[in-house]
């Protein structure tokens, strides 16, 4: 299953969850504005956005904890509007895990099966399997409070998965874990998800988490889905300045649209000319002000005739790479970040050195400038 490229997979797989124009209001505030989204069966979809963007609201609507003010949600082809949360067959992992403190780990995991009236022997067997899946086979008799944060996280995952849900929802499940544990839990969750092939919707505000785990990402802000795509599409071909700035670091360079030719456009950046895709420039006429977005890892030091000139200000050592901060008067904010491999930065481009910067065609994205 994992050999199918995700973008192809999402088109060939049957639809797991379909969200058709769902709107949710709280009083006068619109938390979710006509969201449309199709999630393939077995797909790992991440809802990514800053707090207050509507991602948790959408999750609660899918789980049935909230009722939509408009639109419809389908799970495996069935309309969910009239289905109460306890009949939806959706597993939820909560941000704080919400393990029942008065029950043992095994009772927590078996809860959903007891509620379904599964025979006792089968419950024992399935609970044991679920605990083995999350590598906690020996912990069934413990109480949740006797477990570490990471272990509680696994119990919560086992409890949600043991009911064989049609959809697994995860609400910022790693936010309470320290950084190392978070990394290993991400890998583990991804492996389990692949193995079981369960449709998964993962909510996070952490863009690196979203990029590393997802088949596809829906980037949200202000109650709207801004862009849906594979991590690579989101990172390299953002359709919206918000997406470009929220996912990954970015340098913003004020420029001017020169002309459009089919799918491509030419943008004037000072004396230089840059080729960009025209898809993000709809409605703009030649001469319009645009912002060029270039990732720090796409920036390069040129020998002499780069499109930008500046002075090295300082270096930020990050281990595997070094961010060289360059003062460039032409850039938004007067400064550009250039990301280079860790071993070659400070000696070659010392602070105070005058440098010329460049980037490859296709590595820049242009949007209509929001600066007046």
């Amino acid at each position, binding site marked *: 299953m994992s050999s199918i490229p995700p973008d192809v997979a999402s088109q060939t797989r049957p639809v797991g969850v379909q969200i058709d124009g769902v709107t949710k209001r709280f009083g006068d505030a619109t938390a979710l504005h006509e969201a449309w989204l199709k999630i393939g069966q077995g797909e790992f979809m991440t809802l990514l956005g800053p707090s207050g963007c509507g991602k948790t609201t959408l999750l609660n609507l899918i*789980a*049935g*904890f909230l009722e939509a003010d408009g639109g419809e949600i389908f799970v495996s082809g069935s309309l969910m509007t009239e289905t*109460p*949360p*306890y*009949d*939806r*067959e*959706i*597993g*939820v992992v*909560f941000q*704080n895990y*919400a*393990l*029942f*403190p*008065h*029950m*043992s780990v095994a*009772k927590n995991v078996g*809860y*959903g099966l007891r*509620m*379904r009236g599964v025979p006792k022997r089968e419950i024992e067997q399935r609970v044991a399997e679920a605990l083995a899946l999350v590598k906690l086979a020996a912990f069934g008799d413990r109480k949740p409070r006797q477990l570490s944060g990471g272990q509680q996280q696994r119990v919560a995952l086992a*409890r*949600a998965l043991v*009911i064989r849900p049609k959809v697994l929802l995860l609400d910022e499940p790693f936010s309470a874990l320290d950084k190392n544990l978070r990394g290993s839990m991400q890998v583990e969750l991804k492996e389990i998800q692949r193995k079981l092939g369960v449709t998964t919707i993962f909510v996070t505000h952490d863009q690196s988490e979203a990029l590393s785990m997802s088949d596809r990402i829906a980037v949200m802000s202000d109650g709207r889905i801004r862009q849906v795509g594979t991590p690579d599409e989101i990172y390299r071909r953002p359709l919206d300045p918000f997406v470009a700035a929220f996912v990954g670091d970015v340098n913003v360079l004020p420029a001017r649209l020169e002309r459009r030719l089919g799918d491509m456009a030419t943008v004037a950046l000072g004396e230089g000319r840059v080729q960009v895709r025209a898809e993000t420039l709809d409605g703009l006429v030649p001469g319009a002000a645009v912002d060029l977005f270039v990732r720090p890892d796409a920036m390069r030091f040129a020998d002499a005739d780069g499109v930008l000139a500046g002075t090295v200000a300082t270096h930020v050592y990050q281990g595997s790479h070094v961010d060289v901060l360059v003062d460039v008067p032409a850039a938004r904010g007067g400064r550009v970040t250039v990301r280079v491999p860790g071993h070659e930065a400070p000696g070659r481009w010392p602070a105070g050195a005058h440098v010329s910067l460049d980037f490859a065609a296709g590595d820049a994205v242009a949007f209509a400038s929001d600066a007046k």
Partner: protein
Amino acid sequence: MNKRPFLALFVTPAVLAALASAAALAAILQYAFRAYVPGSLDPGGFSLSNFEALLRPLYAQVFVQTVWICLLTAFITLVVAYPLAFALVRTRNVALKSFLLITAVTPLFLGEVVRTYSWIIVLGNTGFINSILMGLGLVERPVQMMFTTFGVVVALVHVTLPVMVIMLAAALSHIDVDYEKAATSLGAGPVKAFLTVTLPLSMPGVVAGVSTAFAWTFSAFATPQMIGGGRVSMISTLVYQLGFASFNFPFAAALSITGIALTFAVLAMAKQAIRPLEKIGAH
């Protein structure tokens, strides 16, 4: 330098109050073991006769009735207070929240005597309830509610309600709503989710509330005295009669001491009995 310079100053009032009540209790304790001299306010010599007298059916029956009234009151108060506390904690409607809070807590600001008097107006033979029942032609003669255990319990429930609501609300407000959401997502309907998750998690509050209600009712005096009118005897009213109508201080003291001991015993038993309830849903 002293780390808590004001500790002695702050603790002094509490120590004084504790000493005073300990002294009073000690006085009652020594009265309980003295003989009653009829016609005299001073007690006689050492005697266990007061405690022997307690075993007489007449008095033993008052003990049983007191415990019964207290248990009944505590239980009914719990049943009435739980939904109130639940709604108070969970409602998002600010107006409803204020209304519930005021309804639940205002009785605290009226004295026990005032509250009890209002119940006399409601429960009396020509009172509110009987006037309505007779006006509607539902009954021919007034339903006897004054001077009955029923009347006393109704009034005691009202007196006890605020304390119970506050204690339950405190316990319920500490239960994360996500527990119920988790139970629901796992297939539990609202009733099952409540019975297997919310109720067991609120048990510490229930135990605290019921214990407090029991002790609160056990020591209630004005309500059983005014509504019971001498026909519903509780230990507190009996102590009053013996002490201030018969001036038998030693026997009244013995009764008080036994009452305190009994309260502790019942509370300890209640705590033991309720412990298994905390494991509901864990089977």
